[in-house]
Structures are given as structure tokens and as C-alpha cells.
């Protein structure tokens, strides 16, 4: 069994396996595959039905279940949703497992997955990845002009 609590290292190794098979393009193709299936009934549906509030609802559940250390803000008047990730549970776990090397582009799966869902719905997803080596990042989702 691969427990859901062990999924992150399996995910990281999966990305590495795909890159060895077909380069980074193969990894990106998988992220598209996952976004189209996995996020269809969750994030995409929430945002299609409720706009930015759908982001708030989706990530409130997901990040709570992942025991993340984070702060989210929803400003519907400004048309902005933000996540300040103080300790990403996934990257944090990968950094803690000292006998495994995290896949070096691991954190790129977030913008790849979420942009693919949110852009066609009229939102821009941007992410600051400059501190991911310390398991920190930030996300801004806003309505396209």
C-alpha cells in the first residue's frame, strides 16, 4: 500500500521517473492530464459556480487536510484571492526525508495544475516560488482584466 500520508514522496519520484522517460515535457503532459481529471469536479466546478470564493472553499479544505501552515485572504471587491504559505506540507515533507532527493522541479506542479484550470475560467494564477527551498511560497489569483 502507498498510504495517502506517503503520497508526496511517491509523487516526487513519479515526476523524476517521467522526466527520465521523456524529459520535462513528459512531466508537464502528466500535470495537464492530472489537472483535467483530478481538478475537474473540485476546483474547476467550485470556481465556475462561485468565482473566487470557489478558490477559497477549495483550498480551505485541501490545505487544512494537508495540515499546512498558511494564511488565505479573499477580497471579492478587489477580485483577488491570496495564499501565503508559511510551511508547505508537501515540500516540507520532502525536505525532511533526508535519505531522498526531492525532484528539483517539484514545486512547478502547482502553477502548472492550477493555471490550467483557472485561466480558461478568466483568472490569472501567479506564484512566487523564490523561497520554496524553505517550503514557503505565495499565490495570487485575480480576475483577468
Amino acid at each position: 500500500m502507498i498510504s495517502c500520508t506517503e503520497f508526496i514522496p511517491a509523487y516526487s519520484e513519479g515526476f523524476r521517473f517521467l522526466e527520465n522517460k521523456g524529459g520535462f515535457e513528459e512531466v508537464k503532459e502528466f500535470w495537464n492530464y492530472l489537472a483535467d481529471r483530478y481538478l475537474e469536479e473540485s476546483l474547476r466546478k467550485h470556481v465556475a459556480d462561485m468565482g473566487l470564493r470557489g478558490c477559497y472553499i477549495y483550498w480551505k479544505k485541501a490545505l487544512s487536510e494537508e495540515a499546512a501552515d498558511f494564511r488565505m485572504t479573499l477580497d471579492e471587491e478587489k477580485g483577488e484571492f491570496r495564499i501565503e504559505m508559511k510551511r508547505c506540507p508537501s515540500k516540507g515533507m520532502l525536505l525532511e526525508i533526508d535519505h531522498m532527493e526531492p525532484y528539483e522541479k517539484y514545486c512547478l506542479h502547482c502553477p502548472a495544475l492550477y493555471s490550467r484550470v483557472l485561466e480558461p475560467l478568466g483568472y490569472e494564477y501567479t506564484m512566487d516560488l523564490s523561497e520554496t527551498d524553505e517550503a514557503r511560497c505565495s499565490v495570487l489569483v485575480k480576475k483577468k482584466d
Partner: protein
Amino acid sequence: MEVFERKASDNKYLHRDFHISMNMLMEYICEKFGPASLTDYLKDFSREFHKRRKAELMKDRLDVLHEYFQRIYKEEEWEIKITITENELNLTQAACPGISYIREKGFDPIDQYIETYTTVYGELCEGTPYEYIMTDFCKETGACTQVFRRRVG
């Protein structure tokens, strides 16, 4: 403006949707590269992830696997019967937490789902004094009995 803030210690780490993502990753590898590649991937994962447990098993520390399985099933909040003797570790479950959750959410586990057991733990035992035996695996529920047994001879 609405604000929602949580610390890691406010919640338990249990995001069962990861079972669905895992199934999709395996499905993708199977569809794109064939079932043999899925086996290769799971062996790679096992070698990396269980590296330390394998080293302990080489030193005859079956108790390390016992503690490991007790911990992960507790974290999964899943019932399992685990017994250990000098030569054998037995695990019996009425259903698999991954298969159960994947089905509950309306997806189908891949045909090769059993390999998350057989390939992962078979690789863990490779080259150690123990062998891994899976019996009576039910594809529908994941009910099964698993045995880590000291090799004879």
C-alpha cells in the same frame, strides 16, 4: 475581506484525495508506457522510500516493519490485524484504504493497483532474509492477507 489562517498543528495530516492522485499517476504511466513501466516506477519508489527500512530488515529487524505498519495504518485511521512472531509478520485487512476511497469518490482503481503492495514490498524484501507473500487479494475491495516471512535455507 475574509481571512482564514491555520497552523500545521491545528489539523491532522490526512488528505485522502491523494489516493486518487496516486491512482492517476499510475494510470498515466500504464497508459503511456505500459504496465512494465509501472512496475519499474514502483520498484524505483520502493528502493528510495524504503531504503532505511530495508537496511534494518537486512539486520533481521522485522520489528521495524511491525512498527512501520502500525504507524501508517493508525495515521490512515484504518483497521488492520497485525501479528508478529520470530519469523513472520502477518497483516490482514478487510479492505484497502486506497481502493475504498477511490471507489467511494466514483473512480476505478487501475487493474495493477495490487502492485502498490506486491511490487513495493517485494522490492523492499529483495536481498533481505525475508520474503513477501500476498494471498487472497480482492480486486474489488483490496481485502488481503500479507506475510513477511523468513526465507528458508
